[in-house]
Each structure stands twice: as structure tokens, then as C-alpha cells.
């Protein structure tokens, strides 16, 4: 076997430019696979971190009639939680309302949150310290879409528990910058006590954010753990991984095709050599092994070459991050303005295995022909 590696190494080095061209194409595929998967893993980690910090906490206790994906359930999806179950929970009450910036009407979700709270990253201390009648904080996306800035006052119209309209001015006391659009787009956050007072819904909440890991079991309320809440996000990213894999599968296929072609050509041109090996006592399988190792070795060369330019490049990108266009950040999924790729050990070893195994397979396929060759004709150099 050592002999096979020595011979393969010598043959490949002897082939010069052809070897390095094959290795270069394969190394490019190797680096691109690492980069893309690293980018998606980086997005996944960042999105999970942000969602926990801004939206999920350690879990959510949601009223059974409220479905976060159904805006029509906001109307009736709320209730009062028994005092005994309220420990380590921050209440949020959601109502529908309209705001009128610059004479336009915008439908919004008016969210009341307990102040002070420390579970979520929302700057609720601004609400607590404000002297405005109805202080509100909004996200940067809401601020941009409605053209609002801090200290702006605008008219808010809402309905109380009986459906009677009420309208008053609200004051923007803070604009927060979060990567999580689901707590930002079309939402105004105010102190929950103020919202209770405005709607006459004292003590009501649509959901609670949990500070503790353990599930809360209260009839009429569903507890969704942090893991459960993050599952949807992971599924989206897994789907994205599958769809973006098409690109690097194509790239890998081109590189493997190059190796396949090279192998076919070698076997055709080196028939005398094959005949000589067999006449010197090598079995056909040993010769097949020799040629397979030779093809597989392209992947080792590709690794070395890929490491030479890939490591500095990927390290640089993981340090500086990749800028994401602003339009993509409003897709409804947590997406930071810069994503920092993360290259895990599983990803690196997995990619190495993928490249080495696939290169070895495509080298073996043409080498099988050797087993059917007649050594006498081969040594004579007759075409077979």
C-alpha cells in the first residue's frame, strides 16, 4: 500500500500542471462548501442568540386562543393567569390599533410589556423613566417605515374591551436596534399597566415570557420551551442549506468530472505501464488500487492547496463578517446586518470526507477497466 502511495505521488508530481489544475478546481469546491455552510451556521447561531435575547427568553407561556401566526386570534386570545403561577414570568398583552403618521393610517400591534423587566433586550427602562402620558418604544424597521424618530408624537387609535374607540397621542421615547423583525415590524411597545388602563383589561395578558427553563403547567395556557420555539428557525435554515447546496454540488461535480477525465486518459495512455506492473507480479486489483489512490490523491492535494489560501480567507471573513443588504433583513426571519461565518469541526471533517470519498469513487470507476485488460496486449501497447 505504501508503494501505491509512493508511486501515485511520483506520478502526480510528474504530471505537473495537469495535477495542479485538477487540485485547484477541487480545492475551490472545498473552500466554497466550507464557506457556504459556515455562513449558514453563523446565521443560525446568531439568529438563535438574537431570538432568545429579544423574543423567546427561556420559553413562552401562550394563551390557548392566541396563535402568533393568526392576527385574527389577537382579539380573543388573552386571559388572566392565577397569581400563584406568575413567578418568573413577564406578561405581554397584544391589542390591535392604528397610528396616523403624516396623515396616513398604519395598522399596528400595540404591545404592553411589564416594566421593568430584564429577560428581553427591549429597552423598557426608557418606558419606565419617561414622563410622557403614553410613552412608546419602537424598532428601527418600524421607525424607518413610518418615518419616525425619538421624541416624535403621533396619534394612536385603539379600542377598549367593549370595542369603543379611543385616541390619544403617544410619544416615541426610544428606537431599538434588533435583528429580530418579529418584535419590530408594525409594533409599538408601551408599559402594560398603561395598556390595561387604556383598554380596561386589568391583569390580562396574551403571553408571558419565562425567565426559568422549567415548563409552567396552567390550564388554558400552553408552554412552549426555548428549544421548541427555536425549532422553526432551525428548520428554515436547514431548508436554506439544502437549497444552496445545489450550487456547490455543481461545482464539486465539475471538479470530479475533471478527475474522472484525467483518470480515463491516464489509463488509456499508460497501458504499457499497466502491463509492466502486472508482468512484474502485481495483481490486477493492486494496479486498480494504485490508479485509485492516484486519483484520490488529487483530493489530498486539493486539501493542501485549499488550506493554503482558504484558511486565511475564511478566517478573514469570519472576523469581518459578510454584509447583508437591508432589503433582506425585512424578510421576517432574524438576520443581522453582518453575518459572521462559523466553521465547526464537524463541518470541516465532514467536508474533507465528502471531497476525499467522492474523488476516490470517481477515480475508481475508470480504473475498473484495468481488471479486464489482457496484460500481454497491454505490455505490447496495443489499444484495448
Amino acid at each position, binding site marked *: 500500500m505504501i508503494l501505491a502511495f509512493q508511486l501515485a505521488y511520483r506520478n502526480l508530481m510528474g504530471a505537473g500542471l495537469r495535477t495542479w489544475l485538477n487540485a485547484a478546481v477541487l480545492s475551490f469546491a472545498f473552500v466554497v462548501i466550507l464557506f457556504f455552510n459556515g455562513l449558514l451556521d453563523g446565521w443560525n447561531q446568531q439568529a438563535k442568540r438574537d431570538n432568545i435575547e429579544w423574543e423567546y427568553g427561556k420559553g413562552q407561556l401562550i394563551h390557548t386562543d392566541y396563535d402568533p401566526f393568526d392576527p*385574527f386570534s389577537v382579539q380573543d386570545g388573552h386571559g388572566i393567569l392565577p397569581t400563584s403561577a406568575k413567578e418568573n414570568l413577564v406578561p405581554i398583552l397584544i391589542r390591535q390599533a392604528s397610528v396616523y403618521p*403624516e*396623515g396616513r*393610517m398604519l395598522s399596528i400591534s400595540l404591545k404592553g410589556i411589564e416594566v421593568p423587566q430584564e429577560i428581553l433586550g427591549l429597552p423598557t427602562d426608557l418606558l419606565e423613566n419617561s414622563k410622557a402620558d403614553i410613552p412608546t418604544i419602537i424598532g428601527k424597521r418600524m421607525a424607518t417605515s413610518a418615518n419616525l424618530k425619538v421624541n416624535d408624537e403621533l*396619534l394612536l387609535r385603539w379600542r377598549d374591551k367593549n370595542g369603543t*374607540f379611543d385616541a390619544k397621542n403617544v410619544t416615541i421615547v426610544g428606537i431599538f436596534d434588533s435583528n429580530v423583525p418579529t418584535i419590530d415590524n408594525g409594533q409599538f411597545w408601551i408599559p402594560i399597566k398603561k395598556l390595561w388602563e387604556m383598554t380596561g383589561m386589568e391583569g390580562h395578558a396574551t403571553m408571558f415570557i419565562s425567565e426559568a427553563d422549567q415548563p409552567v403547567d396552567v390550564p388554558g395556557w400552553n408552554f412552549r420551551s426555548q428549544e421548541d420555539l427555536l425549532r422553526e428557525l432551525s428548520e428554515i435554515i436547514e431548508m436554506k442549506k439544502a437549497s444552496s447546496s445545489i450550487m456547490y454540488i455543481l461545482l464539486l461535480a465539475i471538479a470530479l468530472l475533471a478527475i474522472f477525465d484525467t483518470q480515463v486518459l491516464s489509463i488509456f495512455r499508460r497501458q504499457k505501464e499497466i502491463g509492466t506492473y502486472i508482468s512484474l507480479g502485481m495483481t490486477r486489483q493492486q494496479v486498480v488500487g494504485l490508479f485509485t489512490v492516484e486519483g484520490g490523491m488529487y483530493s489530498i492535494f486539493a486539501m493542501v492547496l485549499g488550506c493554503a489560501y482558504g484558511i486565511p480567507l475564511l478566517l478573514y471573513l469570519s472576523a469581518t463578517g459578510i454584509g447583508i443588504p437591508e432589503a433582506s433583513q425585512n424578510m421576517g426571519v432574524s438576520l443581522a446586518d453582518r453575518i459572521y461565518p462559523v466553521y465547526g469541526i464537524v463541518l470541516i471533517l465532514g467536508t474533507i470526507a465528502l471531497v476525499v470519498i467522492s474523488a476516490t469513487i470517481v477515480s475508481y470507476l475508470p480504473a475498473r477497466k484495468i481488471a479486464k485488460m489482457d496484460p500481454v496486449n497491454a505490455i505490447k501497447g496495443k489499444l484495448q
Partner: protein
Amino acid sequence: MKSLLVIVFSLIIGGGGDFPDANEILKKVDENLMSKNRITESKMVIYGRRNSRTVTSKGYSEGDTKSFTEYLSPEREKGTKMLKLEDRLWIYSPSTDRTIQLSGHMLRQSVMGSDLSYEDMMEDRELTEIYNAKVIGEETIEDRKVWILELTAKVDDVSYESRKSWIDQERYVPLKEELYAKSGQLLKRITLSQVERLDGRWFPKKMNYKDMLKDGKGTDFIIEKIEFDADIPDYIFSKASLKK
């Protein structure tokens, strides 16, 4: 001395004016505006920021609780039908060939992009049933003397806590209405004009609904043809008629 006390007392209680009873006024208004049933052909002019569009429709209504509307133009809305029975509302859209029942938040959406919400169209209780009315003064609107009525909610579940209504003193037709939020903020203004004598009653043929919190000219609702106490077959007010 006794008679002087009576005069002072009556001035305090009566507020200094000799206005008629507000409920009597509202009753006369109802006599003008209400009918057993009616068939109307109307157009709605919705004024946008840059342009306006007109939606024409034919409507059938019976009392306060049943109504059926079919939109005739523009092409995009043609064939859309709306049925209201008591407090339920269904909409049929010909493009999807589906009938949906509107509820909750959907009722608060605007009708065809106008300043009217479906819920505004649903309000069918008599004003005297949900508001305490009182005459607070008189004024002149376009050379017509009007009573100003202030209506304050006497039940909890009303959309507007208070209203003001300007009623023509001779013809007993409202010429203007303002709807207020609990905080006293003016939310909507309805201006009624083109009052004509139709079938022995005075009736405003043009109404302008204006959401006072939004810019713009609001929405005009113009009645082109109206027939009171007509024969309307029962099947009109059934869900089956939506798909016909």
C-alpha cells in the same frame, strides 16, 4: 316671590334655552331616514392621494338587520356581493368563487379602500337605543337652521363614545355628524347634502364620510336611485343569492 323662584329654577334646569326634546327630534329624523325596506343604486367615490375611483353598487335592505349589496363597477369589483344578516357579514368574491364570513378584526378593515369600515356599515341599532341625546344649541349650515344634538353613549358596547349631530330644523334631516373617541378626539365626520323630497320624505342623497385622522377628502356616497317599501323577495337575503 314664589313665581320668581320658579323662573330662576326653570332657567337653571332648562339651561337657558327653549330647545325641543332631543328624542323627539331623533324620532322625526328616523321617520325620514328609516323605511320598511328599500332598493338603492348608488356610487361611492373614494378619494385617494393622487386619484379617485368610483364604485357603483345596487343594494337591497330590509329594516336595520338585513341587507344585500352587489357591486356593479369597476371591472375589478364587479360581481362582488355582500350580505348582512343581524350581526353577521358575508362577502362573495367572483374571482375566487368563494364566500367568506367577516369577523373580528376583518370587520374593521375599510370597505373597498374607502373611509368606511365594514363595522360602520354593520351598526344597526337605533341611536335612541344606545345614546342619551340632548340639544345643545342651534346653528346655520348652508342657509338652513339646524339643531345641534349631543349624543352620549348609555351602553358600553358602542364604537363611538359620543356623537354630535346637526339636524335641519324644518326637514328633520341630519346635515352633519361628528363621531368622537372616549378621549374626545374627533374621529369621523359625515356631511350630508342634496336633500330632496322623495316619496313624501326628506332624504339626503349625498354623504361624505371623512376619517378625520387621515389626510384626504374622504369618501362620497351618492344615491342615484332609491325606492322605498319595495317588494323584495326573501331569497335575496340568503347566502345562496351570493353565488347567483
